[in-house]
Each structure stands twice: as structure tokens, then as C-alpha cells.
């Protein structure tokens, strides 16, 4: 039984009880409302019979029964619900939320708009698989992210001034992605294509948190959202692949070659629309199933730690150094990104008040071993950087490596303090959420400064 013993008024107690109940997956918002209605009737009857409000609440609670047992009972009755609700999206919770069908309509229109947007440059003679390839690469995120931002601005009822501010980064991105005279096949152009989405993701985040950007928990929600969206996107992409395959096979059976359909319509339009649909799905199901990203983190943290430690041990044993190829830094950047991702999702799913456990120690071990591996690589690269020269790609990779290294090093320090009970877990969470704008700021820097700095090469 849960104790609600911290006093407070009846309303506070009921709202605390409601919150506790909502956390139980099989009990839905409407069921909570039904149970709450019952609780209030019971309390009212007991108060009429002469009990004080808090006594009445306690008695009513007791009669309601053990909430965990109740939750199990609901789960038994509604086991299909967990899956069924994926698309139905009931949200009778807050008065602020919009009706589900309106949201579905908005979502479908936005997804359609994104799917059409990617075909617009073709009207001006730029072709995705032809001479317009570079234009498409640089502007890819601009076809869908403004719409995604619009979706969240609408859903969170952002006020107009914030909306106007949000137009700014997209306008700036559109300008910087298109004004520079890039040389054909230049590295800076590739860097722009890669960094525009990272820079703009922050704008999506501001809309997502509905203006609560200054609050750490809002940013953490955005981190969760990003991870879930990524997973959903991959799943939708897999489904799209199967659909494409079957389309090809079926039309092939009647002697028609429909590769053009897949190549020019299904793939590009689907890739854009799926971002909106994925975002909507994450929104719809966030109360229903436990988030997947933290689960994957739990599975892969031990495995990655083992691989990294094995790598270090092998290197120490055989005495072989890292074979420094030209683009070796990118690989280690990716390693740090993966480790940071695992750290972030472990942090996002953890109860900050819980005591440190074995998984925390493992997490620290993962971060430290990744740092050591990266440091070894950095030393190797630094020794030969003059030989390679400072190209745009290498400076960008080095900068990213540094940003990730700083983040992980400080995280390791905070984690160690937490494990030795000298610091709180909240400090680590705060550090991670406070660091989020740094990635976007660096990405913006790369987009704006690198092309002129490196002569558009």
C-alpha cells in the first residue's frame, strides 16, 4: 500500500492519489476518472456520516483496495489495450489537450504537406536523383522540421511571439544553406547538409516543450521524445521498405516496372511524412507503453562496456597502436555519440532519488572506458594532424570530439561523485540538459562559418 501520509487538503490528497494511479499503465485516464468519481462519492458519504475529510479519505482509500492488486486486475481485463491504444490516442486528461480527431486530421495534413514539400524543388528543375542532389541534401531538414515545429506549436498552444521567434532559425537555415557558392562535391557542402538538422533540432525542441525550455525537466522530455521518435522512424522505415518491396514484386508480376514509383514518390515522400507520423505516435503513446530507448540502453550498456574494455585490453596486450587513417576521427565521434546516447537515456529513465546501484557503476565504467579509448585515438591523431592538414571535415570532427569529450568527462566526474554519495543524481541530469544547446550552437557555427572559412571547398 502506498502511504499518502503527508497531510494536505483533501483535493491535494486526491490529486496525489490520481497521479499515482495514472502511472499504472493498464489503468487508463478514463478509468482513473471513474475510480476518482467513486472515491469522491465515498468520501462525501463518509463526511455526511460525520467523519473528518482526511479520515474519510483514508477510509475510502482503504475500501478501494490495494492499488497494485487493482492495477493487476485491470491489466488482466485490458491486456490488449496496451497495443490497441497505439493509434486511438485517448487523451481526456487535461482540458488543454485538443480533441483526438482534430489532432489526427492536423497530423495527416502536415504529413501530406511534408510529403508534397519534398517534390516542390522538382517544379524548379532540381531533381532528387539528378542535378538537384546537392540542393536536396542541404535543404532536407527544411522540408519537414518547420512542419514538425508547427505541429508542436499548435499542440502546445504556443503564444504568437514565441512562434514568430521560431520562424527565425528556419529562415536563417534556409539562407545559409543556399547562399554560399559551394564548389561541386565540396566537403563544406556535406558538412552543411549534416549540421543544419542538428542546429534546427533545437528549434523543434523549443516548440516541443511549449516554451518551457528553461526548465530542465522539459528538456529531458524532449530528449526522451527524440529517442522514441528515432526508434519509431526506424520502424516505419522498415515497414516502408516492405511495402516498397511488395509493390515492386506485385507490379512486376503483371509485367510493369514501377521502380520509378518507389524511387521518386514512395521513398522521398514517405521519408518526410514519417517524421510527422512518428512524432504523433510518440505523443499518442507516451502514456501507454514504457519507453523503448531506455530499455535498449539497459540491454546494450553491458555489451558496449564489454567491447570497449576488450578493445583496451587487447591494445594493451598486443601493444598495437591505432592505425591512424585520414577519417579515423569520425569513427570515434560516432562512438562517443553512441555512449552519450546510452548515458542520456539511462539518465532520462532513472528515478533521480533512487540510490546508486550496480547499473550505475556499469554506466560509469562505460563512460570512462569510452573516454580512455577516445583519448588514445586523439593522441594518435594529434601526432599526425600536421601531416594531414586542417581540412574542414577534420576540424569539424575534432570540434565535435572535443564537445562530446567535455560532456562525457564532466558526466563521469558527476557520476563518480554520485556513486560515492557525495553528489546527487540531479546534478548529472542538470548537466546533461544544460549541455543540449551546445550541440546545436556548434552545428550552427559549422553551417555559418565553415564554408567561407574553408573557401567553399
Amino acid at each position, binding site marked *: 500500500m502506498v502511504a499518502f501520509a503527508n497531510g494536505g487538503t483533501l483535493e491535494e490528497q486526491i490529486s496525489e492519489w490520481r497521479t499515482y494511479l495514472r502511472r499504472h499503465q493498464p489503468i487508463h485516464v478514463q478509468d482513473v476518472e471513474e475510480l476518482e468519481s467513486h472515491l469522491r462519492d465515498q468520501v462525501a458519504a463518509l463526511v455526511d456520516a460525520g467523519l473528518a475529510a482526511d479520515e474519510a479519505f483514508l477510509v475510502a482509500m482503504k475500501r478501494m483496495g490495494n492499488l497494485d492488486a487493482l492495477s493487476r*486486475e485491470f491489466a488482466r481485463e485490458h491486456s490488449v489495450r496496451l497495443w490497441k491504444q497505439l493509434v486511438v490516442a485517448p487523451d481526456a486528461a487535461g482540458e488543454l489537450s485538443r480533441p483526438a480527431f482534430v489532432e489526427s486530421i492536423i497530423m495527416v495534413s502536415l504529413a501530406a504537406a511534408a510529403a508534397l514539400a519534398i517534390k516542390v524543388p522538382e517544379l524548379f528543375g532540381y531533381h532528387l536523383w539528378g542535378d538537384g542532389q546537392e540542393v536536396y541534401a542541404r535543404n532536407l531538414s527544411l522540408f519537414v522540421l518547420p512542419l514538425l515545429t508547427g505541429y508542436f506549436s499548435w499542440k502546445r498552444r504556443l503564444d504568437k511571439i514565441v512562434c514568430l521567434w521560431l520562424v527565425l532559425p528556419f529562415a536563417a537555415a534556409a539562407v545559409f544553406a543556399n547562399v554560399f557558392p559551394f564548389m561541386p562535391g565540396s566537403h563544406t557542402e556535406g558538412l552543411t547538409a549534416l549540421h543544419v538538422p542538428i542546429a534546427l533540432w533545437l528549434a523543434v525542441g523549443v516548440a516541443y516543450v511549449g516554451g518551457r525550455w528553461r526548465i530542465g525537466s522539459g528538456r529531458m522530455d524532449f530528449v526522451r521524445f527524440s529517442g522514441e521518435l528515432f526508434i519509431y522512424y526506424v520502424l516505419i522505415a522498415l515497414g516502408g521498405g516492405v511495402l516498397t518491396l511488395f509493390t515492386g514484386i506485385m507490379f512486376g508480376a503483371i509485367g510493369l516496372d514501377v521502380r520509378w514509383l518507389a524511387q521518386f514518390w514512395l521513398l522521398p515522400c514517405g521519408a518526410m511524412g514519417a517524421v510527422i507520423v512518428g512524432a504523433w505516435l510518440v505523443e499518442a503513446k507516451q502514456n501507454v507503453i514504457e519507453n523503448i530507448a531506455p530499455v535498449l540502453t539497459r540491454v546494450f550498456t553491458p555489451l558496449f562496456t564489454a567491447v570497449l574494455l576488450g578493445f583496451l585490453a587487447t591494445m594493451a596486450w598486443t601493444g598495437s597502436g591505432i592505425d591512424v587513417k585520414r577519417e579515423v576521427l569520425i569513427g570515434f565521434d560516432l562512438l562517443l555519440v553512441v555512449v552519450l546516447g546510452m548515458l542520456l537515456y539511462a539518465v532520462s529513465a532513472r528515478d533521480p532519488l533512487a540510490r546508486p546501484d550496480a547499473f550505475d557503476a556499469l554506466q560509469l565504467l562505460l563512460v570512462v572506458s569510452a573516454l580512455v579509448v577516445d583519448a588514445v585515438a586523439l593522441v594518435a591523431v594529434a601526432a599526425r594532424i600536421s601531416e594531414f592538414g586542417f581540412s574542414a571535415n577534420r576540424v569539424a570532427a575534432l570540434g565535435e570530439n572535443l564537445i562530446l569529450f567535455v560532456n562525457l568527462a564532466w558526466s563521469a566526474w558527476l557520476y563518480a561523485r554520485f556513486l560515492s554519495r557525495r553528489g546527487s543524481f540531479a546534478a548529472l541530469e542538470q548537466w546533461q540538459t544544460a549541455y543540449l544547446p551546445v550541440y546545436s550552437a556548434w552545428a550552427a557555427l559549422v553551417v555559418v562559418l565553415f564554408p567561407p572559412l574553408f573557401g567553399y571547398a
Partner: protein
Amino acid sequence: MDVSKDLVAASATPLVLALLAEGDSYGYAILKRVSKLSRGQLQWTDGMLYPVLHRLERLGFVAARWEASESGRRRKYYRITRQGRAQLATQRRQWQVVNATLRGIWSDVSSPMRHGMAPLLPGS
């Protein structure tokens, strides 16, 4: 006296259906009514009624709707369906068989119980 858990669980469906056959009702009122009819001897854990109601709804024996109450709060009202009435009739026949059998035995063995159990069973 506490009625055993299994018996409570077994009697829940006919009880709820019988009460709803009297008229539409909502969870709290159903519990009040059960408690009153059994003179407080049939105690349900309040929360457990709702999974039962939801199961009956899924099986099509009752239909639910939300309605605003006097206090402005929404309440979920349940109504028995035609299928539910048929189910109630079946259950009633079954309970009557059980009841009649038990009565037969108990009158034969000259009532080993000082205060009977029979009035608790529905249909008597």
C-alpha cells in the same frame, strides 16, 4: 461474517447484472446497493468492481456511457443489454439449481448452521 473470496467472485456477475436489470446505475451506487441488500455481509473491495464491469462491457452484457452528475462531475453509467438479460436468466437458473440442491441437503441434515447462509444467495 465474511463470505469467501471465491464465492464473492462467482456471485459478482449475476449480482451486478441483476442490479442493472432494475435500472441503469454507476459503480458507487451498485456497491451501496449490494452492501445494503446483503446487510453489509457481502463486502467487495470497492476497486475490484470496475474490472468486473469492464469485463461485462467487453462481453456485451452491459453498455456504458458518460453522464454529468448533479455536482458537474462526470460519471460512468452502465445499462444492461438484451444479451445481458439473457445471460442473467441463464445465471439465475444455474444459481437456483445450486441453491435448491444446497437447501435439499441442509434440510436433510437438520441445519448444522445456527444462522443460515441461504439468505445471502441471490434468488432466495
